[in-house]
């Protein structure tokens, strides 16, 4: 099943975060809890963990862009769920 990973609400005050860099590539197998993306919030640079296990199919969010909380940032192919 294709899981559409939305940007978690990691910002302290705003509702947007800056996408810094991808930490995994398309085709990579990722585990639940693995840091897959580096972002910068209003407060700090931090890593975003994947809530699911699977294979990364597509990066929707591009580095050096700003995305809103809740925007789809990646497509991850999962086994079940």
């Amino acid at each position, binding site marked *: 099943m294709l899981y559409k990973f939305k940007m978690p609400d*990691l910002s302290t005050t705003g509702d947007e975060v800056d996408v810094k860099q991808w930490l995994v590539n398309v085709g990579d197998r990722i585990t639940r809890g693995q840091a897959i993306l580096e972002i910068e919030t209003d407060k*700090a*640079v931090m890593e*975003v*963990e*994947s809530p699911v296990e699977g294979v990364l199919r597509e990066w929707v969010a591009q580095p050096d862009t700003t995305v809103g909380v809740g925007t789809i940032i990646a497509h991850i192919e999962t086994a079940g769920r």
Partner: protein
Amino acid sequence: MNSPQAKIDIDSYEAGFLLGLYECMVQIREFEEGVKFLFLEGTMPGTIHQCQGQEACAVGVCTALEPTDWITSTFRGHGHALAKGLSVDEMLFELFGAATGCAGGKGGSMHMVNMDKGMIPSIAIVAGGVPVAAGMALAFKMQQTGQVAACFFGDGAIAEGAFHEGVNMAAIWDVPVVFICENNQYGASTHVSKVMRAATIAERLSSYGIDGRRIDGNDVIAVYEAARRAVDDCRAGRGPAFLELMTYRRTGHSRRDACHYQPKPEREQWLENDPIVRLGQALIEAGHATTEELDAVRKHILTSFDDAVERAKAQPQPTLADLTTHVLA
């Protein structure tokens, strides 16, 4: 304190008791991890303060209490609640803001409560539980109920006025309260050394005439035994008591904290000092369980958590009429 990876001495206890401790710690860990992923998925709004890595504190202390004893807890209270016997359902429903949650959907993560199970709503004000616990224990003493209050707080509480006033009151009244400081070494981004000149929190308590010991807070048996002594002392009229449980906050302060102020080597050392792994190893070495059996415990807990999430999503939300219930003034 023992060195972090010191072996857990389980020789005095039966397998069933030890497995109960293990299961409760895994329940807390997987509840917290599950909630973390619900937050990342966007299924659960709001922020959360989590206690992964501190499970032995909650479980060791609450196992030493009777069901009729009471606890006060904090914003980081999921572990205390589960260890005091609250169900995953009533807590998760509360986190989903449902009317069927333990606080009717009005409290959320920071206000876990079950008055039938000895847990007043957890208090998000740092050190707020200290005077409340002293007061509860005074009532137990005056009414001669034989009950004990156990008061959980963090290292960040020890420079609060309410802490010193509450502890002193409890001390001069000789009331049956066990103060438990989970010294996870950080209050938000501030290291405990920046808010205290004394070497240990225990020695500060001795200035109030309360005996206190520093204990390896990631050794569930050490915590349980110290808590047992403290609770027995309180019940015998020799309270209050104090425990300083040395542990580590391995998550950010809340979900939105990147936690960069914790030095990497320090983090890594503490990640290896895992209270669940340590008890698991002791259980395997003693022949009380196999790796497969311990895995099965975890899998069972994971499956029931997923089931609880499905139930939680289907719970009724509070209605407009609930706005004026449970309001005192």
